[in-house]
């Protein structure tokens, strides 16, 4: 295993006034990772990114990039480059001058600068706009300039601060694919900051979910979705039915609990749990039937359809069960006639496999 490109050790940032933006964060990022920092606004993800770039200084802790402690290295000497949220493309320079800027100020010879600028512009498909000024360009084009300007420096790590937030929906999808492609082509580490879980899930190879300045979980997108470690993450990533429950007995393999609206249920679970917990199940794991399911191993409950929202490929059904428990169910509309097959007010049964249930103790 190669050494990590970035190692964060107990990084803390306290702003004047006592606000702890980043609180004792430690983790590693490997070479060639597409790493996402995900969290609600104000969770400290941008501050963490800015500390990696050097634009912000940690109050305590260490930031090690490529094996070197960066404590005394100013941003202009770090092997990182940033794509800013506002793109920050210099308005008084042409596209080519913008891209060349980082090479000129560091004394790269003119010939080499020309060649590298041409390469970078080609990479983001902006060669034909090289002589333009930024105010004659669209948001998407300006973002490409910002990308080229950062990549032309050949950084060890590219930092992207909410790169897609200012683009419209269609362009965002395009750029998502393009960023993934770029990352594969240039073969350097990308760190992206985003509050959009779809963005993080679809692009990143690993995601760190942050909340209130601390890292809650670091995992691959699928792990994060299927094995969240806390209520916060289960709720933050995708849609989920969270049901309060009280533990009755807990053995290393099995957990018995009383769940609201479901009664006493048995769940496979490794590890101990006690007291009040939450169980979670994703809406697409639930099945709807008209009659009580036969299979004894399933968890099931009876309820009344309260709402059906049609989304074309799926319908989102909300069912009210016992104890005012409301469950969301995603139904695949897999035949042209009938749609979801349920109507508002209809009595239905809901069931799912116990192993699709998550036990959340935090």
């Amino acid at each position, binding site marked *: 295993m190669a050494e990590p490109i970035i190692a964060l050790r107990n990084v803390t940032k306290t702003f004047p006034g006592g606000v702890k933006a980043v609180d004792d964060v430690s983790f590693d990022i490997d070479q060639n990772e597409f790493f996402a920092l995900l969290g609600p606004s104000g969770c400290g993800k941008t501050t963490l990114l800015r500390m990696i*770039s*050097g*634009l912000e200084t940690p109050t305590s802790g260490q930031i090690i990039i490529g094996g070197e402690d960066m404590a005394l290295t*100013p*941003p*202009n*000497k770090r092997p*990182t*480059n*940033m794509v*800013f*949220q*506002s793109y*920050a493309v*210099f*308005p*008084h320079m042409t596209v080519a001058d913008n891209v060349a*800027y*980082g090479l000129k*100020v*560091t004394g790269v010879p003119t010939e080499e600068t020309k060649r590298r600028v041409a390469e970078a512009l080609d990479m983001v498909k902006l060669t034909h706009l090289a002589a333009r000024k930024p*105010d*004659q360009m*669209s*948001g998407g084009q*300006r973002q490409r300039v*910002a990308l080229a*300007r*950062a990549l032309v*420096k050949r950084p060890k790590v590219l930092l992207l601060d909410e790169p897609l937030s200012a683009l419209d929906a269609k362009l965002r999808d395009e750029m998502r694919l393009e960023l993934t492609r770029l990352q594969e082509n240039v073969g350097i580490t990308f760190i992206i900051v985003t509050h959009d879980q779809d963005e993080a899930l679809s692009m990143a190879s690993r995601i760190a979910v942050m909340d209130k300045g601390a890292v809650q979980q670091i995992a691959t997108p699928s792990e994060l979705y299927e094995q969240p470690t806390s209520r916060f993450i289960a709720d933050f990533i995708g849609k989920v039915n969270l049901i309060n429950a009280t533990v009755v007995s807990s053995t290393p393999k099995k957990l018995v609990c009383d769940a609201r609206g479901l009664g006493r249920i048995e769940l496979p679970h490794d590890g101990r749990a006690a007291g009040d917990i939450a169980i979670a199940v994703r809406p697409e794991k639930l099945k709807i039937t008209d009659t009580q399911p036969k299979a004894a191993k399933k968890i099931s409950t009876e309820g009344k359809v309260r709402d059906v929202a049609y989304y074309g490929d799926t319908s989102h059904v909300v069912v009210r069960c016992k104890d005012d428990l409301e469950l969301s169910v995603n139904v695949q509309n897999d035949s042209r006639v009938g749609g979801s097959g349920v109507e508002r007010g209809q009595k239905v049964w809901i069931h799912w496999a116990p192993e699709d249930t998550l036990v959340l103790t935090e």
Partner: protein
Amino acid sequence: MAETLKPGSGPLGYGTRLWLRSLFVAIFIALYAPIATLIAFSFNTAKRGVVWRGFTWDNYEKAWNNVALQEALLNSLTIAFIATIIATIIGAMAALFLWRFRFPFKPAYEGVMALPIVIPEICMGVSLLLFFIYTGMMGWSVGMPWPLNLINIIIAHVAFCFPFVAVVVRSRLVGFNRQFEEASKDLGASEWQTFWNVILPFMMPGLVAGALLAFTLSLDDFVITFFTSGPETVTFPVKVYSLVRRGVSPEINAASTVLIVITVIATIIAMKLQAPQKTGEG
């Protein structure tokens, strides 16, 4: 809202109410009639008085050939030129300082810096005169060769011009996106390179506007110059004043018209540069 509103027929209705329109015209006449008269009479053939006799360019020629006026104009332009350069540099630095740093009593400092803008000119003139006498500068500069004998006036002009530059440049800097600066550093530029390549180009319209403002203020100034000039160092406005005391001649009208034209052109350029750019940041 099928009806399209004609200009002036909106809720404010300034174009439809007669009394408003009359007021508008009256104000304009009050403001510009004297200047229009001055310009008109600069083309008058009559030697004295305010009776129209006929059109001529002669007054301009005479004014141009008047050695005393020439000297005064040269002094004025020299003072304005040097004072503008110094005031622009000091004003820009003050603006940068106020924009960039946080320090105790900053609002107080900002207020004090802008004081020369609001202080009555006569007070400024008297205080500068006292300052120059007290420091011995007044006596010292009189004996110096041109243009060093203008030094008192130049210092005085810098003192009242630089706050204007600072205010203009500062308002320009408010629109600066700090991420430009961060991007520059992130791309490998030093603090100094960032200043020259990113911040200064952004400040430029403000600098030029501020400089032109300082130039026109310096060129026009009478009160402060009157107090701080020595017997040998007469500026254009001061010279005009001394000539007028012997009666208004069309020659003075012509010279004044030239001054008005220079000032108006500089002001227009300054206002153009200060106007917000049409292509906004998307």
